[in-house]
């Protein structure tokens, strides 16, 4: 029944470009979709393991830069007489490398930072993203620094004789983002319902107890970080090949904040949470764009973030869920209003 509803939702999303003819709205949906993928990746750490990682944009940016550089080609001077030269490759290969490299970065950051918890962990993750931004800004020979990487090639299809095309348009990009989004969703769902997922939730609920029954804390956390980082890298790669220009600002802390807002609004630790939160914070600001200035919009964002923490601490999805259940069981047994700790 639930699965059936999910596929109905996917079918609806597939149909969107057929009736939505305004390309601007399609553009908004593409960007929103990319951010939803990034938020889903953040949710894996924030929602399921309870680690407030505020450096997620670091992985997003690594994915974007790697993918862009592989598809543009680059030359890396390692020593005076040895240089690593990479010719331009198709965008999909860039995507693959982007995912692998961000996953690797996730492993490194995870190994390093999961020794510590709480405020220390948060600050290390922020520092990681900020160092990445400064590297992108200063390593001009590789990243062009503030001049940005321009003319990043779009995704291409290359089936000789059958279909060869460069996917510049909104509609193909929409479908690419949708496909990656659905795959990410399925990966996360399988993950959190597996042994790994149960271990992660046990860690979030009570780490000493989880450790005492033999759950290898660091191993599971690092595994979650690798998957999460790889997924954020995938989102970054999609972004690079869709927008086709990236500069060090892709590493800005404000993007991490956007992801955090999406996750906590929708409901952290729920599968649908990042999608609901992402749609709200991806689409609503665009609707407000003509009437409010960006500063005002951000002020509203900040206010909403505080309001949600105060009044809806578990997010929209659990709240709706609860309301629905209490409606269903109104005649029968009363369901306690607050189940959450």
């Amino acid at each position, binding site marked *: 029944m639930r699965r059936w509803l999910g596929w109905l939702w996917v079918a609806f999303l597939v149909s969107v470009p057929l009736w939505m003819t305004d390309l601007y709205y399609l553009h908004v949906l593409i960007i929103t979709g990319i951010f939803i993928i990034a938020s889903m990746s953040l949710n894996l750490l924030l929602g399921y393991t309870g680690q407030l990682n505020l450096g997620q944009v670091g992985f997003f940016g690594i994915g974007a830069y790697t993918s862009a550089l592989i598809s543009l080609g680059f030359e890396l001077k390692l020593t005076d007489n040895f240089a690593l030269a990479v010719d331009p490759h198709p965008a999909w290969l860039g995507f693959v490398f982007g995912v692998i490299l961000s996953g690797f970065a996730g492993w490194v950051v995870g190994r390093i930072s999961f020794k510590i918890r709480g405020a220390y962990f948060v600050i*290390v993750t922020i*520092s990681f993203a900020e160092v990445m931004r400064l590297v992108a800004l200063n390593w001009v020979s590789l990243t062009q620094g503030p001049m940005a990487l321009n003319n990043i090639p779009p995704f291409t299809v290359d089936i000789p004789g059958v279909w060869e095309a460069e996917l510049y348009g909104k509609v193909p990009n929409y479908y690419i983002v949708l496909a990656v989004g659905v795959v990410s969703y399925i990966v996360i769902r399988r993950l959190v319902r597996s042994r790994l997922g149960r271990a992660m939730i046990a860690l979030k609920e009570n780490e000493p107890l989880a450790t005492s029954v033999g759950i290898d804390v660091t191993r599971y956390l690092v595994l979650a970080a690798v998957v999460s980082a790889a997924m954020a890298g995938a989102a970054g790669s999609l972004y690079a090949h869709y927008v086709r220009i990236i500069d060090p600002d892709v590493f800005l802390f404000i993007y991490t904040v956007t992801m955090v807002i999406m996750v906590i609004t929708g409901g952290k630790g729920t599968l649908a949470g990042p999608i609901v939160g992402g749609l709200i914070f991806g689409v609503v600001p665009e609707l407000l764009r003509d009437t409010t*200035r960006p500063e005002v919009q951000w002020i509203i964002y900040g206010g909403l973030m505080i309001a949600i*923490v105060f009044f809806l601490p578990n997010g929209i999805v659990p709240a709706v869920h609860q309301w629905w259940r209490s409606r269903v069981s109104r005649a029968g047994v009363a369901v306690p209003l607050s189940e959450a700790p």
Partner: protein
Amino acid sequence: MVAGKQEQSRGSGFLDQLLQHVVNAVMLGSTYALLGIGLTMIFGIMGVVNFTHGELYAFGAYMMFLFAMVLKLNFFVALVFAVVLGVGLGALIELVLLRPLRGADIDTTMLVMIGAWIIMQNTEQLVWTGVAKSISTPFPEEPLVLGPVSISWLRIFVFVAAGLLIVGAQLLIHRTKLGKAMRATFQDRDTAALMGVSIGRIYTATFALGSGLAAAAGALLGPVFVAVPTMGDLAALKAFAIVILGGLGNFAGAALGGFILAFIEEMGASYISSGYRDAMGFLLIIVVLMIRPTGLFARAERIG
């Protein structure tokens, strides 16, 4: 012989330069220490990771601009007003946002503080626009030249003022009744409450004082640099670096951490790469947490 002399003069040039860098680092370090002390107090006593700290720093700089440049008040009077308003704003944030959340877990308060940070920064952007504001000072343009080292009078004033504020905060914590109550709360909140310490009032006072120190740092550095809406971001992150360096909640550690960060930044920028100046702090955080997760001067039982 000639070559030897050349070598020698280059050597003394290097030393002169080094001396100049050390002096610069000490001047900068005093304001960093001010930032770090405010943040570490708030964390140590309240357990709050204060993301608005950088915005209070920016607030101090903008208030300085408002009073000294727009309202044309005396520079020193403007400085006092900026700090007093910073204290007031800190108290307001504590009463409105943090008091209702007492007892909530650290992640919850962090999210609320991030929300407050976004609101404050964008309000600054809205009110003052993105154009940088410079603040003029009554100090002479000509720097003070001491042998090979030259220091601007403004920086000397900043150093002295920051030093006085640090000593003042230290005295407040160690010599007053309020400070005693703060230290008691830091050691054991419940016992302090049983002894008749009003925890709510201590929290408000702590947050207000920490905010006042951040605003003071901003008001002092505003005239040295310029005031821009995003100035708080780096300040906040650097303050975190300083606090981690000294150990969260460690007052003396934060003061020392401020000087260490300034020193590393100055040396890193001069001898490694100036583009990575601001990265030094973050690399330092990562390295310190790798080696000693409790900070370099871990003695977290008490502040001071």
